[in-house]
């Protein structure tokens, strides 16, 4: 895990989220973890190929996911994490990752991203790769989201 590869992901948050009507997100914590991510409720995995390979996972509670979906839908109340809300979370994950991929390209790394896979379930275990991975905790309008980054340069 190369720490230099982290900034493109954080920059993507800071660029994309305000465009969608969120307050500027803040990075609250960052640390390295071994192997397994524990699902907080809603986890979106997106894969990378070409020069940067690996996976990243956006990990959040269902409450955070509902807050994000609601903000994306112009503040419409989201009581249950239904199909529309799931679609919104997939879409924002796709936008964030595509923006990060553009940032990585600007650094000279050719990358391509897969479609997002959204999984739901508390306490499920998620393995993103064989090595340690980096956790960046973001605060979005008082809601926490973890970005788990397990990508490396080939």
């Amino acid at each position, binding site marked *: 895990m190369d720490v230099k590869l982290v900034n493109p992901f954080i920059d993507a948050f800071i660029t994309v989220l305000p465009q969608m009507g969120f307050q500027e997100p803040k990075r609250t914590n960052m640390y390295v973890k071994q192997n397994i991510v524990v699902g907080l409720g809603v986890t979106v995995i997106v*894969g990378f190929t070409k020069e940067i390979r690996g996976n990243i996972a956006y990990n959040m509670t269902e409450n955070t996911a509902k807050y994000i979906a609601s903000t994306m839908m112009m503040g419409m109340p989201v009581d249950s994490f239904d199909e529309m809300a799931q679609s919104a979370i997939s879409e924002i994950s796709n936008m964030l990752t595509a923006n990060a991929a553009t940032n990585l390209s600007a650094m000279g790394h050719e990358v391509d*991203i897969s479609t997002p896979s959204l999984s739901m379930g508390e306490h499920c275990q998620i393995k993103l790769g064989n090595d340690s991975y980096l956790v960046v905790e973001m605060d979005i309008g008082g809601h926490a989201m973890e970005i788990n980054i397990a990508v490396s340069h080939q």
Partner: protein
Amino acid sequence: MEKVKVMVVDDSKVSCMILEDIISRTNFEICAFAANTTEAIEKYREMRPTVVTMDMNLPDHDGIECSRRIHAMDPDAKIVMISAMRDASLMAKGQEAGISAFLQKPINENELIDTLMLLCQNKVGTIVVLRESYAKPFSRAFQQGLFSLSGVHSEAELTQEEGRYLEVNGIAVILGITGKPRGRAILYMDASTMQKFSRVVLGRKSDAEVSKKEIGEAVEEAANIIVGHGVSTINDIFQDREMRVTPPGTLYGENIRIANPKLISFKISAATRLGTIYMNIGFAGGE
């Protein structure tokens, strides 16, 4: 669903029979056979097929001349040349005569269907194209992969996924697919099947000898092999897809639901003596 009309131009009865056999099992149907150029032009005008397969050797004119005449009548005609020879000069002449694709005899069934699908994409529809040209290679790779890794035979069944979620109780290995189209494949199975499957793959005598880490690795390796083969097959046929596979992301646990928003996805179930093993392959449509 309405079938897509194919006209076969070939003077050999055997070739016609082989083509009919392949095409009759698909969403295409043969609307006419023509044994020479005159018949081909006459029947093309009458039947207006969506696509034509063209033999090189015809009794009156050759296949290129016949194609040129059909193309003059209908500049949108889609013609696939099927010949024993496939060299650069033939292909150059053929393209100039309006031939869209060249296949070599003996006909490879998958190659023929994939080519017809690609040429008739608008007519056939995205779902059929994704199923026939993209999901089916994965279905074949799935069966072959299971057999080569674990020696188990399976009956694989490919259906369009209608449910909103995949329900996972056990393990699910997700591999992203980049290129055209983007998508992802998920190999998943329940806890008891994953235990037996990894024991067989690793060649152990009892389930107790297999650690949780090894189970994950065995299933991930199976997914890598199967999806890698599926993608290679597609890249071999369509030179411009640049499909690649991401490293695996693996979920373990009970009551996990994986949602499918916006993907057109297919479920492949393989019933084996170890239990049922599933693969879901989904693509972003319209890309």
